[in-house]
C-alpha cells in the first residue's frame, strides 16, 4: 500500500498560488526528495500535508485512507511525523522526556493523563530509541543543554519512538556541522529501511543525492521536474530555476 499520496493539491494566499496542483506519491521504505529554490512552495506543501494548513483543493491519503484537512494531532496518531526547519525540541524537558512525549497517546484518558507516568516498558522503549541514535548517556539531561546537532539526534529518537508510516523531514541537515551530518544520514536511511516512507526537503544536493531514490523539484508552487537525482542534475528547467538564465 502506498504510504503517502498527494493528489492535485492547491493552496493560495490571496493572489499568490503557493501550491499549484501538486501530485506526488511516497512508497513505504522510499526516500523522496522535495527540492526547489527558496520560496518555491515546499514548506507550504508539507504544511498542507501535515495538517498545519488546510489546502484549498486536492486530497491527501495516508496508507490508503483520506486525511485531507485533519489536524496535526490526528495525523500524528495515524502515523505521519513531521520535523521542522527549526528544531522541534523542548529545552526544559529531559532528552528522555522529549522522546517520551512522542509515545502514542491512544488509550489515554483523563485520569491516566493526570496521575499517570509512562510505563516501564514505554520508558525502556524511549531509552532504546536514544541508544539507537547514540544519545543514551544524555537521557536525563535537559535537552536545552545539548548542541544543535545533538538536539537533531534527539528529535530523530522521538521520530523512531512514534513508529511512523510517513516521515516528512524539513531540511534535517540545515545548521548541522559536517561531522554530525555524517551521524544523521545513516539514521534517515535506517528510518526508510524499517519501512517508513520519507519525504525529504533538502537544499544540500550532496545529501539529497546520497539519500533520495527519486525527487520532485518545485518552482513558483508547481512541480517542474520528477525523476532520479542523475536526471535532475542535467535538467535544463531545474538549472534555470536554481541559477536563472
Amino acid at each position, binding site marked *: 500500500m502506498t504510504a503517502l499520496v498527494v493528489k492535485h493539491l492547491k493552496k493560495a494566499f490571496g493572489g499568490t498560488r503557493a501550491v499549484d496542483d501538486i501530485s506526488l506519491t511516497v512508497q513505504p521504505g522510499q526516500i523522496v526528495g522535495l527540492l526547489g529554490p527558496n520560496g518555491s512552495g515546499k514548506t507550504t506543501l508539507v504544511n498542507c500535508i*501535515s495538517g*498545519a494548513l488546510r489546502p484549498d483543493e486536492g486530497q491527501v491519503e495516508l496508507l490508503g485512507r483520506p486525511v485531507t484537512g485533519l*489536524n*496535526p*494531532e490526528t495525523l*500524528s*496518531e495515524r502515523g505521519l*511525523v*513531521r520535523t*521542522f526547519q527549526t528544531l*522541534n525540541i*523542548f*529545552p*526544559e*524537558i*529531559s532528552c*528522555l*522526556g522529549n522522546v*517520551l*512525549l*512522542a509515545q*502514542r*497517546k491512544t488509550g*489515554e484518558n*483523563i485520569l*491516566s*493523563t*493526570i*496521575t*499517570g*507516568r*509512562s510505563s516501564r516498558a514505554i*520508558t*525502556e522503549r*524511549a*531509552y*532504546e*530509541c536514544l*541508544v*539507537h541514535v547514540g544519545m*543514551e*548517556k544524555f*537521557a*536525563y*539531561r*535537559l535537552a536545552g*543543554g545539548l548542541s544543535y546537532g545533538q538536539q537533531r539526534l534527539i528529535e530523530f529518537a*522521538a521520530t*523512531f519512538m*512514534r*513508529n*511512523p508510516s510517513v516521515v516528512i523531514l524539513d531540511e534535517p541537515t540545515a545548521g548541522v556541522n559536517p561531522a554530525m551530518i555524517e551521524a544523521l544520514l545513516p539514521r534517515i536511511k535506517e*528510518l526508510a529501511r*524499517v*519501512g*517508513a516512507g520519507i519525504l525529504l526537503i533538502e537544499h544540500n544536493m550532496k545529501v539529497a543525492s546520497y539519500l533520495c531514490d527519486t525527487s520532485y523539484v518545485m518552482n513558483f508552487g508547481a512541480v517542474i521536474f520528477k525523476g532520479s537525482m542523475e536526471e535532475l542534475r542535467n535538467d535544463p528547467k531545474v538549472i534555470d530555476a536554481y541559477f536563472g538564465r
Partner: protein
Amino acid sequence: MTIQKSTTSVENVKREVIAPEHRRFSRTEWITYLGLLVVLLLFPIVITEPFVLTVAILTLMYATLALGWNFTGGLMGLPLFCSALFFGLGAYAAMTADTNFGLSPWIGLVIGVLTSMAVAWILGALTLRLDGHYFGVATFVVGAIAIAIFNNISSIGGVQGMSAPIHDSELYYMQWQQPRPYYYLFLGLLVLSVMLSETIHRGRLGLYLRAIKHNALGAAHLGVRVTRYRIFALMISAGVTSVAGSLYASYVLFIDPTTVFAPEISVQIVIIALLGGLGYTAGALIGAAILIPLGQYLNAALGFSGQGWNLAIFGLAVILIVIFRPTGIVGVLEDACRLREEKAGHPEARE
C-alpha cells in the same frame, strides 16, 4: 517499525539533572513538606490571636489560589487573569445553596466546582486558540463581565450582595464561632492542592503542558492534543479556585460581586505565583507566605489613610521580579543549590 533492542537499561543511566517528569519525592522533600504540615497544624493551637489567625487563613487561601492558577499560568504558560471569576462562582454557589435553598454550603461547593469547570470549558474553547497577551486580555474582560452580570441578578442580592443566615449545625452549614475550624478547612484544601500539583507536575499531564508551553505546534505534531490539555488545565485551575471561593463565602458570611469577582484578586494571585516562582508548587506557598501577611499588616498599620499601599508594594514587587529574577524566589533557591553542589563537585551540577 522495530529498532534493535539495547543491551543496557534506562535504570542504569546516571541521573545527572533530574527533570520534573522523572523526579520522585526525595527524603529531604518529604521531611520539608511533613515538617511544614506539622508546623501548620500546630499554628492555631499555639497562636490564638484572631487577627493573626485571619491573616493565616487568607495566606492559606491565596496559596491555594496561586497553586490553582499555576496549572494554567505557570505550567502551561498562558496568563490567566480571571481567577476571580471562578472564585466568585464558588462563593456564590455556596452562599446561594444556603441562603436561597436552605441546602448545605457543601452541596453548593460541589455545584460551584461543576459550574466553574463548565464555564472554564466554554471559556477555554473560545479563548485557548489565542496566544500570550491576547489570552490574558480576553480572560481579564470575561472576569470584568461577571461583575456586571452578578450586579444585576436581584435574586442573589444584586449589587447589595448576600448574607448567610446563621445556623446552629456547625459542620453541615460550615459555620463556626471560632476561626480555627476554618483555618483547618483551608489547610486541608491546600494540602490536597499541593498533592494534585505535585502529581500533575511529575505525571504525563505536566510533561504535555510543559511541551505545549514551549511549542504548541511542535507538541501537536508529536500527537499531543493541545486544545484538549489546555482546556484540561484551565478546568483544573477553575475547580481548585472555586472550592477556595466556597470556603471563603462560608468564612466571611457576606459576599457581593465587587468583592468576590474583584480583578484585584486575579492580579494578586498572579503576583504571588510570580514572586514565588512560576510553575513551582513551592513558589505558590512561598509567594503567599510573604505577600499576604505583608499586605495585611501594612493595611492594619497604615489604617484608612494608607489604603492601597499594599497594592503599590505588590506592583513594585512585580517590577523587581520581572527585571531581576523572572524565575522567582524558588528559581533563586534552585540556582543557589546548584552552585553549592557545583562547588562540592556533585555530579548533578557538572553540566
